[in-house]
């Protein structure tokens, strides 16, 4: 709600003037809250950078927080909650986060009805004053700009931002768990999670490489086994996520009720098959994919700027293309299998939503976290 209200008037502009001025410049924009961050992201034509950044500096530093719009903010937030409620593929992941990360870190950034209904203006103002701090804030810019002018601009806009120290993030812990949500839907939606190393871990690219073998492209193992050979699903995918010091692999599959158990079983078998070996073909495809993705990323200033911010947050530096390529080039079939065996899937979390519950094999339920996190493992 603070993020929403900050955009309803700031600096010299009221809510309507902010939207009108940004629209007038054709600025594309989004904003979001995640477990540790509130973020604003914009894309604009080069000429509009200075004025756009000025408006965003006002939102972060000088929001009006108008009392007469708190109710509108609240209604907007409640609408967002309802929209998740109606989308099973989103809802299973909101619930999985809760199962896996518990009461504090597993909270949905969208909140709960009771919480949203109890927020008053003072909560928002206090939250803004206590949390919108320069310490730990990151501004990443990519595209067409002049570095010296940008530095001056940022200096002018943000120099009076307080530098009070932000409290350090607490250690994120995960837990195993299973939850089923009874739902009168056509498909059963299956969200599964297990441990992997986080982004800042020295072996992160090994974990990322394994995900690539598992899920990137049409020759990936999950696509081949679950969809191509058996026709069990339309969508099956896996991705890596890092929350603070904790890495997770998240997988999703949606299938009609009667085939849900088979879909889960095949998904888990396919994940475990990574330990049996990686072929040279799989390795070379994964390298080709990363290489072209890195080169194509340069064609999108938006994705480049978000990558810069991610690097800075987790690594305190920005990796260049060469460095990432060297990491990927150093992967071997042997190193990937070795990594898988060293950090095998543990601490499984499963959320299903649909007409029938699905059962996670007993052996999976009992395995607790191996604590393969950045702060305890080796960081890069």
């Amino acid at each position: 709600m603070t993020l929403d209200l900050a955009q309803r008037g700031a600096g010299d502009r009221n809510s309507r003037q902010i939207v009108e001025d940004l629209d007038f410049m054709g600025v594309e924009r989004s904003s979001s809250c995640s477990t540790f961050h509130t973020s604003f992201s914009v894309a604009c034509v080069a000429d509009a950078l200075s004025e756009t950044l000025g408006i965003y500096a006002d939102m972060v530093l000088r929001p009006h927080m108008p009392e007469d719009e708190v109710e509108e903010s609240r209604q907007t937030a409640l609408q967002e909650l309802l929209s998740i409620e109606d989308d099973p593929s989103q809802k299973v992941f909101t619930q999985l986060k809760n199962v896996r990360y518990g009461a504090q870190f597993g909270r949905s950034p969208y909140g709960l009805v009771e919480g949203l209904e109890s927020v008053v203006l003072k909560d928002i103002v206090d939250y803004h004053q206590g949390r919108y701090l320069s310490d730990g804030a990151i501004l990443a810019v990519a595209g067409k700009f002049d570095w010296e002018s940008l530095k001056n601009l940022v200096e002018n806009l943000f120099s009076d931002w307080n530098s009070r120290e932000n409290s350090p993030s607490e250690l994120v812990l995960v837990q195993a768990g299973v939850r089923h949500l009874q739902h009168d839907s056509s498909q059963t939606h299956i969200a599964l999670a297990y441990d992997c190393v986080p982004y800042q871990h020295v072996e992160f690219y090994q974990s990322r490489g394994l995900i690539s073998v598992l899920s990137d492209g049409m020759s990936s193992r999950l696509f081949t086994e679950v969809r191509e050979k058996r026709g069990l699903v339309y969508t099956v995918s896996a991705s890596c996520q890092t929350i603070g010091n904790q890495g997770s692999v998240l997988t999703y599959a949606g299938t009609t009720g009667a085939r849900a158990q088979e879909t889960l079983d095949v998904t888990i078998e396919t994940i475990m098959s990574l330990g049996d070996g990686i072929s040279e073909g799989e390795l070379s495809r994964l390298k080709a994919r990363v290489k072209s993705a890195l080169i194509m990323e340069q064609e999108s200033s938006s994705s480049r700027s978000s990558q810069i911010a991610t690097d800075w947050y987790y690594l305190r530096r920005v990796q260049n293309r060469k460095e990432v390529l060297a990491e990927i080039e150093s992967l071997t079939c042997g190193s990937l299998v070795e990594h898988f065996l060293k950090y095998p899937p543990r601490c499984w979390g499963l959320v299903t939503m649909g007409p029938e519950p699905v059962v996670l094999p007993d052996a999976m339920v009992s395995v607790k976290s191996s604590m393969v996190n950045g702060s305890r493992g080796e960081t890069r």
Partner: protein
Amino acid sequence: MKFENKTLDNGLQIIAEVNEEAFSQSLGYFVKTGSRDEVPEMGGVSHFLEHMVFKGTAKRTAEDVNRELDELGAQSNAYTCEDQTVYYMSILPDQQSRAMDLLTDLMRPALRNSDFETERNVILEEIAMYDDAPPYGSMEKCMESFYGNHPLAIRVLGTPQTVSDLDPEAMRAYHHDRYAPDNICLVATGSVNFDHLVKQAEELTRDWTPSGFKRVAEPPSHGIASLQFQHPPAVQQYTFELSPGVSRNDPKRHAYRLLATVLGDDSGSRTFWALVDPGLAESAGMFAHEYDECGILGLFLTCTPEDTQSNWDMLVKIVREETDKSISERELTVAKNKICSSLVLSSERPGNRLFTVGNAMTLRGTYETVEDSIENYRRVNLDAVHAAWKDYVTQVGARVTIGPELGVLN
């Protein structure tokens, strides 16, 4: 940027927007057949065929196809819509000839019976997936009601019934007729070697023969019913209304799009301020879409069932009745800036240009630079937008609402 255009003897048109500065290249086959070119009993055949294209050719198994796509490091995919079926990939320029070999081979799929059954299940899962996701098929239901017996009423995915009934032999005949070179356009953008592209296409498509297929595009008669459907698991109410707009060949189409942006864009529009900003609705707005012979001006609203009636009344009042609050120059300029800025930002990537350039050629038979497209919007004046508005308010729409209960909207 340099535009290239060449038509082979067999009728295959090849176009490219060459940008030697680009890091990548995008390639696509735009096949001019989609759900609107189907008969109702075979609804979904274009989309089913799109899936089958990836199941192998005379030279390649399905595994070969998937493996080679990934070896190219390609971002590749395909989609089917009402008007066309498009296969595309983004690659590094040094992979052009390999990518062309694969993509062109895909246009001649094996269509094996054994793959047909597995893929049928995948498509039934895809239909089930959309059944579970908002807006729960309300747009498709509204298209059916709006277009009646016209082929634009046919669903892109088909229905569980038509997909279950579809027979491989009928699909083969459909493929033979529609994937003929005179019904396909090969499009390339970015860092492209056009001479090589043409030479290779000539060699690879030497055996392809034209079919003479031509789309039948008869103007529809529009339905005006208001329908309600129940979807018990839903918590929100989803409403669409479709009214006649203009076709993609109509010079008024830019004015229609600007009208929809002023009145119903997702930010800063009249419906945004009235319904979305105050948190009355999750979304509410207006959109314009064009086909060969007709078009749509549509309204949509997503909110709680309890608020649906009052929100809908407000939405209709804003877009239909408040003609006394005429559109200002400022509103029009903002709408133009939004559309034009988005054109510029999306042109950064050859992968985005592929669709803009490909669609303009296959759907309208023209090539436009980014500057041309911008100019098309810049030159629309207020009179043209007001004229579009006047056309719009004389028309009646077809409406569908779907939610947990019936009886929420009069």
